[in-house]
């Protein structure tokens, strides 16, 4: 596949982020702090009502230097691009550095589910993935982060004391003891270091 940006560096890493209640705010702060040429693709599952049209992309685009789009079935991942899971579909990462969508049953009552993205990312990239769990009022993402940790990837959780909803960060920390608990500004620093 040809790359319109002329940039053909093979991708080596990806960042996956999961967020739920309170997530828009937390995500905005992170995405706004990353440069347009951030070298890794960022894949995001944010829980939103199933039937809502995806306003998320519209909401995030002006805040973020990177390209922001809804993930399309079987598209090739690119650097400098943020991909949101569309409402009502799971987002999966393939070993071929493409993404796939599916209408499999909800996981943890959610579709998209953070666990599905994180587990497939761990499978596809092993140590070369960073998973970040942000604020939320459920337990989605805990298993997935655990899979990332077990595969040698980098596991990060928003500090529960800072999170608008601490339940999801706490569950993730419990499931994945190797995860680092960081405040938003420290999460940004960690992601920037990976870009260096």
């Amino acid at each position, binding site marked *: 596949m040809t790359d319109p940006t002329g940039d053909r560096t093979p991708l080596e890493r990806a960042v996956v982020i999961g967020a739920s209640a309170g997530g828009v705010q937390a995500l905005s702060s992170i995405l706004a702090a990353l440069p347009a040429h951030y070298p890794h693709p960022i894949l995001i599952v944010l829980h939103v009502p199933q039937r809502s049209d995806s306003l998320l992309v519209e909401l995030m685009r002006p805040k973020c230097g990177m390209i922001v789009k809804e993930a399309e*079935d079987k598209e090739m991942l690119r650097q400098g691009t943020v991909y949101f899971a569309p409402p009502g*579909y799971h987002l999966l*990462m*393939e*070993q071929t550095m493409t993404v796939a969508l*599916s*209408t499999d049953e909800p996981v943890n009552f959610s579709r998209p589910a953070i666990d599905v993205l994180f587990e*497939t990312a761990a499978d*596809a990239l092993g140590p070369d993935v960073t998973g970040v769990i942000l604020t939320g009022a459920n337990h989605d993402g805990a298993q997935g982060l655990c899979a990332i940790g077990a595969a040698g990837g980098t596991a990060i959780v928003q500090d529960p004391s800072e999170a608008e909803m601490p339940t999801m960060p706490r569950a993730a920390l419990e499931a994945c003891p190797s995860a680092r608990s960081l405040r938003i500004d420290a999460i940004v620093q960690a992601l920037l270091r990976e870009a260096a």
Partner: protein
Amino acid sequence: MANSTDDHEIQLLLEDLFQHYHYDFRLYARASIKRRLLQARVQLGFGSIAEIRSAVLRDATLLPRLLDFLTVQVSEMFRDPSYFRALREQVIPHLRTYPSLKVWVAGCSNGEELYSLAILFHEEGLARKTMFYATDINPTALKAAQAAVYPLDRVRQFTENHQQSGARSSLSDYYTADYGRAVFDRSLGSQIVFSDHSLVTDAAFGEMHLISCRNVLIYFDRDLQDRAIGLFRESLARRGFLGLGSKESLRFSAHADAFGAFVGKEKIYQRIGA
């Protein structure tokens, strides 16, 4: 790192299923297949994918249970009501002009999409001149589709969707409630032919005026999607219609030129040219 033992065993299992049973999942989107096979391993009580492999070769009765993991039967009646509304408002007026109609629901699962179309055609007064062809590769799903019985607790969602599709009747006109189940009217099925047909390994069948194939292609890789789209191209009558799922499109297909976007937003295409 990807667990390469599992990956290797999955590849062998898929090869075996094709060689021995002619079910071809080799070019399905792999991440989803892998997730579901790992679930099958746990839920069917096997220690490894290799064990599933030898068991299914020994015992063909395991096959249908494995197919329930390899295929995904998640659906709703009038799923994405705006799709059905677009069919009703924009496609039906064209279909009215034909003396008889053929509609193919490919990947019909347990029949939710099929009966949605049957009810819509009934409401629009086209039912009597329409033949429906409902196909799937999962025999259990085809049987359920033929039975047309759904748990009553799902019907509330179906009803809401139906109303949003621009309904001209009440969904309750089409079923009777019975011990927590909604049993859909037998007469809806009188013009439906059910058959086992794979978009991967079987041939085109012809002169359809409308093909509705939703949320099946997303389970395929791009080459396989293209094969299926080629089948649809061959199976459509001149100026026939093709409806896909909300996240499926012809944009990346080698057959894109043979179709025009008819209601682009709803992924409804019309066959054009040769």
